């Protein structure tokens, strides 16, 4: 490229993309463009949260963790269990109680799923770390079916209703009208992403993760405890998927034992789109997938939206396997 955009390249790409997406929304949805834009951002935020875990795990041990989508699904079931056990059935009016319950639900789901992720890594992936690449991939597929079917045989074989504790209020900021839940999901997801970036870039543990991703042996020689760093990566990635599971409950109010597979595959597409191993890219990729889905539906091709997402996956892998942002090695974690 003749012009060097330098450090502004990323923001310019993102801004250009959002503008183009909005223009397409206006073409397809007219007056509803703003609503569709918010729909896309919200579902995109969910995919982005899941994609982060995918990309972190891939970045550090180069494994496609097929069970990751099921972690998201299990996270939604944890929030269902907690909220129904606490006896909630609908929106909570008192903002203090609401805040407390939200914090409790997110922390519970994130910690529980984080631990599940670490256990899976310890039991199913670590013993195979030096085996042929095929072995852990097959184990990952197996783990995915195990998680899915444990929920299937023990909890429910059908749709489960999760209490939607956020009141359904619309907020207006000048010309922008947005429902509280959408704003909450988008802000939460962005907040978690920023927190992750800060953690990875500014802390010692984050530096350990980055160095392990770059060169495991060198990191080990420099005194990084490889096993606990990988475990930490699984914990954080799974916790983010757990948070996405809670969002699923808050936003849609339902869950099902089979939602993990498709969501996981879409999130993986997001990770690939953003350049696998690249956390910023995965977050952007998640939003791109959200826009592809909503645009397909908005243009009247809703029945093709999944095909469009998976078609994107194949095309990206064929023509630009490093993703839109590229595999920024220094940034991998």
């Amino acid at each position, binding site marked *: 490229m003749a012009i060097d955009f330098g450090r502004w390249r990323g923001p310019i790409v993102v801004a250009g993309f959002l503008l183009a997406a909005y223009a397409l929304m206006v073409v397809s949805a007219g007056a509803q463009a703003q609503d569709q834009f918010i729909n896309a951002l919200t579902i995109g935020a969910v995919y982005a949260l899941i994609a982060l875990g995918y990309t972190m795990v891939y970045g550090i041990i180069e494994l*496609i963790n097929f069970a990751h989508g099921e972690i998201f699904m299990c996270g939604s079931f944890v929030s269902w269990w907690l909220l129904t056990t606490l006896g909630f059935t609908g929106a909570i009016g008192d903002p203090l109680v609401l805040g407390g319950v939200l914090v409790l639900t997110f922390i519970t789901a994130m910690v529980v799923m984080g631990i599940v992720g670490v256990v899976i890594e310890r039991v199913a992936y670590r013993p195979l770390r030096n085996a042929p690449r095929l072995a852990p991939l*097959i184990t990952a597929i197996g783990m995915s079916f195990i998680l899915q*079917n444990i929920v299937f045989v023990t909890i429910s074989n059908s749709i489960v209703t999760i209490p939607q504790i956020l009141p359904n209020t619309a907020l207006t900021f000048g010309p922008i009208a947005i429902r509280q839940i959408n704003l909450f999901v988008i802000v939460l997801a962005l907040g978690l992403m920023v927190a992750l970036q800060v953690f990875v870039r500014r802390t010692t543990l984050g530096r350990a993760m980055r160095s392990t991703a770059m060169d495991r042996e060198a990191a080990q020689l420099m005194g990084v405890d490889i096993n606990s760093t990988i475990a930490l990566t699984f914990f954080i990635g799974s916790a983010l998927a757990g948070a996405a599971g809670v969002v699923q409950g808050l936003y849609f109010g339902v869950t099902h034992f089979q939602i993990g597979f498709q969501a996981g595959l879409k999130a993986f597409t997001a990770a690939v789109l953003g350049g696998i191993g690249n956390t910023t890219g995965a977050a952007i990729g998640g939003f791109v997938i959200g826009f592809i889905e909503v645009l397909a539906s908005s243009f009247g091709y809703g029945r093709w939206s999944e095909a469009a997402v998976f078609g994107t996956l194949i095309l990206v892998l064929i023509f630009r396997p490093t993703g839109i942002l590229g595999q920024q090695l220094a940034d991998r974690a």
Partner: protein
Amino acid sequence: MTTTRIGLRQRLGPAREFLRGHQSLSITFGMAIAAVVLPLIVLIPPFNGFGTQKDFVGGFADAGVFVLLAIGLNVVVGLAGLLDLGYAAFFAIGAYTMAYGASGYSGLDTPFWIMIVVGAFVAAVFGLLLGAPTLRLRGDYLAIVTLGFGEIVPLVFLNADTYTNGTNGITGIAQPSLYGLAGINGFGFTNPWPYYITVLLIITIATMLVYRLQDSRLGRAWVALREDELAAASMGINTVSTKLLAFAIGASTAGLAGVFYSAKLASITPQQFEFQVSFTALAMVVLGGMGNTWGVILGAFIVYEIQSQGLHQLDAFAKSLHAPPISLGPITLDLSTINFINYQYLLFGLALVLMMLLRPEGLFPSRRRREELHEAAAEVEATAADAVSQT
């Protein structure tokens, strides 16, 4: 234990040598024995209580479809070491090719025997189309591309309803016919025998071809590639075309299976080709032993029978015991309320994980594959030991 095994080997030595030297002959011989023995299972208790001989033979013919799928997937996963997670897509393409070639929907009536070749060819072409751009990528990218492809193909058959009759699928697919040759014309919905014999023939031929390929230059290239891609490339093996051939051969076998499947069932819908089919075929290959065609055939047969018969019988058996519920502290175990059929995919998932951890070479391993996988395990131990000694 070991001594008796060696003893047996020595005694069977000459016979083994002969069979190894005449592979096609021994495959034919083995399949012929299987063809005769399998239908006799129904005479042995407790199997005689599970159904009529026709039920068994029909079930075996259905199992044959999965045996074929496993043979083909084994070429891709076991021999060439490429993980294909969208294998059901090629199965679907074969099945729909048959449906277009001979059904009331298309108005054509191409003989099944021609469609077998056409179906295999069309599936192979799609295999090439998908593989050509993606096989340049690293192995795990291939897994995800095939997974995406496996999702898209049924979606296309579902949504392009102008060309595929959409969600209703295609009905009235023609059954095979011998055109009264030799006075036999037995293919029908109530007589499973011709299907049983046909599928055994197809399996026999496929197995022969796979063994021939395995021992050919191409087969050796696959092994080289699987063990060390870089070394293989530097030895002058064209990695892309070698992988591509494995991919296309695997796809064409799935196409064959699809043609047979849709001719036997006579009606197909897009919902029959979802990810579960790919997953089941993968479980069969892994359990049977990646790389060993005989092992995979056995693995596929056993897994299919467990899924279609075993779990049902186990369920009925558990219930017929009328065992009183056992109380284990807070958990009550009541055999009569457990539905074993629901545990199918949980068991498959557990089997995949446990096999990879404990016996990655499968139940019936190929010698070469076992060595490779254990070599890797030994490396793990070595590095672990290194790590310990370092600290």
